[in-house]
C-alpha cells in the first residue's frame, strides 16, 4: 500500500516510498506507529535524511532539535501532510490522528468553544461526548473561564493549550504536536504536559517536537535531529549510556586539539575524549554524561567525523 489515504478507517495505514526503504525493525511492535528510514527533499534540499522514529501507544516520544533540524518535516510526514521521498511511515487513518501544526491550528475568529465544536464535528464526535471532554480538558488547562473568548484574543500559551485540546479531543491513536511549548510560560507548560500525559495515559502514542532538553528527559524516548539527520535516539538512559569515549570536567578550556572537543557549561568546561584518546586525568575530573552532554557529544562526534572525512 502506498500512501496514507486521506479518508481511512481506524486501522493503521502504511506508506513506503523509495527504492531503499527500510521497515520497522525488531524493536517495533505491530501496534507501533512511526517513520522508518524516511528522507524528504524540499526542492533540492535534503530536509530529512534516513530518519527513524517509533511512537508506541501509551508513550511520549520527543523529537528534539534546533531550528531547521527537520522536526516539523518529520511530524508532517507522520501526520500525512507530507509525502516522504523514501522510507516508510506507519500511522493510523486520518480520523485517528490528532495534529497540532506549528502555531495553534485554531481559528482566531472563533471562540474557544466554537473551535472545539468544529473539531468535534469534523471527527464525528457526538455533541455530548465532545462537551464532556472539552469541559474536562478546559477545566484542567485553566481555560474554562475563557471558553467564550475568541481564540485570537487568547495569550500565546492559552492558544497553544487550546490547540492541544483540539488535537486530542477525539482521543486519537497518534497525537502529533509540533512545538506545543515553544514560547509558553512555565505554568502553561505544566498544563500542556498534563494534557500530553493525559493523552498518553489514554493509550495514545504521543509525538511532540521541542527545542527544550528538559522536555526530552520527561519523554519515554527521544529522537535528536541535527541538520535533517538523526543524531541520537532511544530512552534518555539509552542515549546517555551509548555515549562513546569519556567526558571530563575542567576549569579552563584546554589548549590544542582537545580544545576543539571542549564546550563551556555553567562556569566550567566539558572536554570529550573519543574512544582511544582517553587522557590520563585525575579521577575527580571524569564525569558521567547527562542527556545534554550526550547530545552535545553526539553532535561533536559527527562534526569531527565530517571534518575528518573532508580532510
Amino acid at each position, binding site marked *: 500500500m502506498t500512501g496514507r489515504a486521506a479518508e481511512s478507517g481506524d486501522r493503521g495505514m502504511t506508506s*513506503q516510498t523509495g527504492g531503499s526503504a527500510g521497515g520497522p525493525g525488531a524493536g517495533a511492535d505491530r501496534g507501533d506507529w512511526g517513520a522508518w528510514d524516511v528522507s524528504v527533499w524540499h526542492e533540492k534540499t535534503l530536509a530529512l535524511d534516513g530518519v527513524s522514529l517509533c511512537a508506541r501507544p501509551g508513550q511520549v516520544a520527543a523529537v528534539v532539535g534546533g531550528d531547521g533540524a527537520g522536526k516539523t518535516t518529520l511530524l508532517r510526514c507522520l501526520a500525512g501532510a*507530507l509525502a516522504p521521498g523514501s522510507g516508510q511511515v506507519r500511522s493510523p487513518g486520518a480520523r485517528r490522528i490528532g495534529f497540532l501544526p506549528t502555531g495553534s491550528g485554531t481559528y482566531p475568529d472563533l471562540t474557544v468553544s466554537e473551535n472545539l465544536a468544529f473539531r468535534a464535528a469534523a471527527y464525528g464526535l457526538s455533541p455530548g461526548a465532545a462537551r464532556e471532554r472539552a469541559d474536562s480538558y478546559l477545566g484542567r488547562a485553566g481555560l474554562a473561564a475563557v471558553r467564550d473568548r475568541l481564540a485570537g484574543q487568547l495569550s500565546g500559551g492559552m492558544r497553544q493549550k487550546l490547540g492541544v485540546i483540539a488535537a486530542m479531543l477525539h482521543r486519537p491513536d497518534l497525537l502529533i504536536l509540533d512545538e506545543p511549548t515553544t514560547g509558553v510560560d512555565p505554568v502553561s507548560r505544566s498544563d500542556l504536559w498534563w494534557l500530553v500525559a493525559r493523552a498518553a495515559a489514554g493509550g495514545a502514542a504521543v509525538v511532540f517536537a521541542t527545542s527544550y532538553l528538559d522536555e526530552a528527559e520527561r519523554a519515554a524516548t527521544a529522537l535528536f535531529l541535527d541538520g535533517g539527520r538523526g543524531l541520537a535516539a532511544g530512552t534518555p538512559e539509552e542515549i546517555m549510556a551509548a555515549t562513546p569515549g569519556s567526558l571530563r570536567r575542567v576549569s579552563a578550556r584546554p589548549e590544542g586539539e582537545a580544545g576543539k572537543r571542549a564546550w563551556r557549561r555553567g562556569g566550567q568546561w566539558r572536554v570529550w575524549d573519543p574512544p582511544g584518546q582517553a587522557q590520563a586525568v585525575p579521577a575527580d575530573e571524569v564525569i558521567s554524561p547527562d542527556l545534554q552532554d550526550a547530545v552535545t557529544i553526539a553532535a561533536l562526534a559527527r562534526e569531527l567525523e565530517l571534518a575528518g572525512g573532508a580532510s
Partner: protein
Amino acid sequence: MWAMIVKEFRQLRRDRRTLAMMIVMPILLLVVLGYAASFDVSSIPVAISGPQASVAGRMLPHPFDIVSSEPGNGRAWAQDQLRDGRAVMAVVTGAARPVVLIDGSQLFAARAALAALAGLGRGPAPPGAPAAAAPGAGGTAGAPGGGGPGLAAPRVTILYNPKLTTSDIMIPGLAGVVLVFIGTIITSLGVVRERQSGTLEQLAVMPLRPRDVFLGKIVPYFAVAAVDLAIVLAVGIVIFGVPFRGSAAVFALGALLFLFVTLGIGVLISSISQNQGQAIHLAVMTLLPQVLLSGLIFPLASIAAGVRWLAYFLPLTYFNEISRGVMLRAEPIGALWQPFAFLALLGAVVVTLATMRFRAYLAPAQAGRRRRRPASQGRVGDGGPQQPVLAVPGPGEGA
C-alpha cells in the same frame, strides 16, 4: 521614509504575481474593455410573419436583419420570437396596417430600431428625440409617416418595457452584479485566510474530503447571498417598479446556478492566491469584465467580435439573459435552456478546478507519493529490508 519605501519595493518585488497583475492586467483590461465599450447597434434582428412577410422584408434595409420570415404565422409567433430573444423587432403583416413589435427589454437595440423606423418614415422617433411621439401607456404609437409601396404605415408596439425605462433592464442584471461583487470577493478570501492563519495545514490532516471543504466554504455564503438577492429584487420591484412577469421558480433556479458559479469562482481564486491581496486583486479583475462584457451595460451585439467571445465565459452574461428574460419577458424555461446549460457547464468547470486545487492542498501526501512512486514497493511485514527502529548513531560507531 526612505527605509519604508525601500522595504515596500522589496516586498513588492518578491510578490511577483501581484506585480505582474499590476502591470499586465490594466493593459489587458483597457484593450478588452475598450473594444467592449460601444452602444452602437449595427444590426437589428427582425422576424416577419403574415402573408406579406416577403414584401415587408424587402422594405427593411440595413440595419434591419431579417432572421426569420414566416408568412403562415401570425402575431403570436412573432411575439414568441421577441420573448425568446430570437429577434428584437417583429413585423406582423396581414391586417390593414402592419404591426411592428419591438422588444423594449433590449433597450439599445429597441431605440436603434425606433430610430431606424423613423428614418424610414415608418415609426415614431426614438424617445427623447425632438420629433418623438412618446409611446402611449400601452406602448403603441401610430407611425407618423406614410406607408411605403405595398404596405400601409405600421402600428408600432413596444413590448416588455413599453416606456423604454433604463431601470427596468438594469435592475435584473444589477442584482447579479451585486452578488458578483459580494460573493466573489468574500469567498475569494476563504482559503488564503486559512493559509495565512495556519489552519490550512490542520485541515489537510483532518478527515475532510476536498469537496466537503469546497462545499463547506460555499454553503454559508450561498445562503446569505440568496437572501441578499431576494432583498435586492424586492427593492427593485417595490422602489423602482421593475416588473416580474415570469416564473419565480425558473428565476430561482437560474439564480441558484448563478450563485453557485459566482461563489465557486471566488473559492477557486482563493485557492490559487498566495495572500489576501492577490485574492482581492484577482477577484476584482474578474468583476470588471463581468460588468462590462456581460451585456449588462453594452449590448452583446455591439461588442467587437474579437472580445465578445469572452462574454460567453462569464456567468453574469447568462444570469442577465435569465433575469431579463424571466422578469421582463416571462420567458419559459424551455426558451432559456442555453443560458441554463452554460451556467451549469461553468459550474461544473469551476467545481472541478476548485476541487482539484483543494485536493492538492488537502492531500499533499498523496500527490507527492504519486510523483515519487517507485518501481517496487513493500509494506510492513512483507519481508522488506529491516532497519533498527531507533538507530543511535554514536560517534566512533559511524552514523
